């Protein structure tokens, strides 16, 4: 009896020791590195938030610890809304992002379906042609594009952005959706065709609903990219009430060498909220969309 207990005690002791070892191993191999990654990733956002609720005097007092705030206040946010056109910029960003996302999604669904599902001469070549537009990013096109926008008399007009954003959204969305469309069994569609549905009906009633997760992913991506776009908006929009958030913040909250950091960080935080919210609700779609091409490729 006594022998048995001692053996048991010994075994329990060994297990405990093992667990301790494994925990220590995981602490250095997993927990601490993960914590480090998370800290470095999130710190700039903490810094935005903490700066945005500091008063100017606290901001410019370098005797205090900058990591904390002593007298939090919302003065920067008040200034942002009552002394600048920040509200206009948010509305402009929303209008432009929403419209260009819609246009891109509709044209990408049609094109993606056509390229993935219909057989005709040149489909593969056109598919690659759409992909090749990745090689001509806005950085390469913005100067000639400015000429074209001028010819169309679209400077300081929402349409300048709504029509040009799809150039980098459509290739991405089309390729993403082609993958999703290919994954839907042909038999489902053929059954509908046999039952007398037209090709368009089969597409709208069967393929599109089944590809909804992909469409959602593509839409979220398109919205995020257009919300953050900077170069075209910087070149095409100079009227203060027509700027988007990124352009307005950089152009009008920085005056020469003077940086209003409190206001700037408040604007950066508020300007991030729409995409952050969207993202927090649909993380999984986001990750799926981002990796769909990668995993299938």
């Amino acid at each position, binding site marked *: 009896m006594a022998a048995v207990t001692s053996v048991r005690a010994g075994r329990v002791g060994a297990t405990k020791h093992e667990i301790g070892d494994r925990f220590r191993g995981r602490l250095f191999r997993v927990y601490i590195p993960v914590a480090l990654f998370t800290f470095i990733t999130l710190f700039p956002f903490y810094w935005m938030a903490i700066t945005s609720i500091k008063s100017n005097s606290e901001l410019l007092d370098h005797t205090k610890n900058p990591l904390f705030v002593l007298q939090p206040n919302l003065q920067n946010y008040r200034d942002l809304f009552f002394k600048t056109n920040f509200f206009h910029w948010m509305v402009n960003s929303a209008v432009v992002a929403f419209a260009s996302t819609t246009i891109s999604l509709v*044209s990408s669904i049609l*094109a993606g379906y056509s390229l993935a599902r219909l*057989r005709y001469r040149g489909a593969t070549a056109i598919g690659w042609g759409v992909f090749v537009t990745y090689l001509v990013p806005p950085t390469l096109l913005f100067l000639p594009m400015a000429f*074209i926008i001028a010819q169309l008399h679209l400077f300081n007009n929402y349409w300048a952005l709504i029509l040009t954003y799809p150039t980098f959204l459509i290739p991405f969305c089309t390729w993403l959706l082609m993958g999703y469309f290919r994954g839907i069994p042909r038999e489902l569609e053929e059954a509908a065709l046999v039952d007398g549905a037209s090709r368009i009906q089969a597409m709208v009633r069967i393929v599109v609903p089944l590809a909804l997760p992909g469409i959602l992913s593509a839409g979220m991506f398109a919205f*995020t990219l257009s919300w*953050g776009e900077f170069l075209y908006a910087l070149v095409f929009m100079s009227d203060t009430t027509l700027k988007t958030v990124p352009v307005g*913040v950089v152009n009008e909250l920085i005056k020469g060498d003077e940086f209003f950091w409190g206001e700037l960080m408040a604007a950066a935080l508020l300007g991030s909220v729409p995409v952050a919210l969207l993202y927090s609700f649909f*993380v999984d779609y986001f990750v799926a969309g981002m990796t769909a091409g990668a995993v299938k490729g």
Partner: protein
Amino acid sequence: MATVTPRAALTRLAGPRVRLFERETHLGYLLLIPALLLLLVFVAYPFFFGIWLSLSNSQIGQNGHFIGLGNFQFERSDTVFIGAFMNTVSYTAITTVFKLGLGMIMALLLNQVFPAQRFVRAALLLPWIIPSVLSTLAWRWMFDPTFSVVNWVVIHSHFSATGVDWLGKTTSALAALMIVNVWRGTPFYGIAFLAGLQTIPVDLYEAARVDGASRLQQFRVITLPMLRPVLLVVLLLSTILTFADFTLPYVLTNGAPFNSTQVLSTWAFQTGVNGGYIGIGASISLVLFPLLTVIVAGVMLTLRRPE
């Protein structure tokens, strides 16, 4: 009567099929119209128009005339252009190496089990979601030499008594640019690699363990080859985006100090928009095109499926 039957039967058989096929052709092209129209008008046309601009002496408000390769010849001896070119290459090359390494570590970590996993995974992707102008502004403020946090840490941990003028010195400004780019770009690599890791069958690792393979060997023989397709897509997209990156360099330093952080995109913008020399600006940004093509071809060749 007897002579007609086989043919008639054939046409009757082939008829509807051919028509169905033709209908598919028409519908196929029809559905492509909106996308192709937008891409032709706003990508193909400006692209070729840009080539013409780069061969002309156009300025803001006036269409210039053809001057052949004059702009490119001018750039060949322009030190700022050469600097911008070198910076673009090193900005892309160095950050890609770091993003690749850190992204792989991030993916391997996220593939482990730990508390608050979903939260951490969502949080780690944030830099990639937030508009780059806004997060870059936060970094610009963090790098502020007198009032901000990076130097506060440097001084209080006694690395240096005065701190570093991160964005004000030619030696550190480009490094600061790269740090921010790595911070923003790593999550994309990490999450994509994670998705790739999760598609690798567990039995492969079990078999390897039975055969006595070490962790490192498993990584080299199983993980890396299985990640090849993911690696291809991620590297392709990321190098294109980094090479043509305008937002981050423009907001963080805009070429300052003394053009030491100038990249092709910011230099094209300064020349074409601020300076008004659209012809020269267009030729600067056009230099990106052959380079991008070479990069893409290179990535595809090195990572193509082994036969």
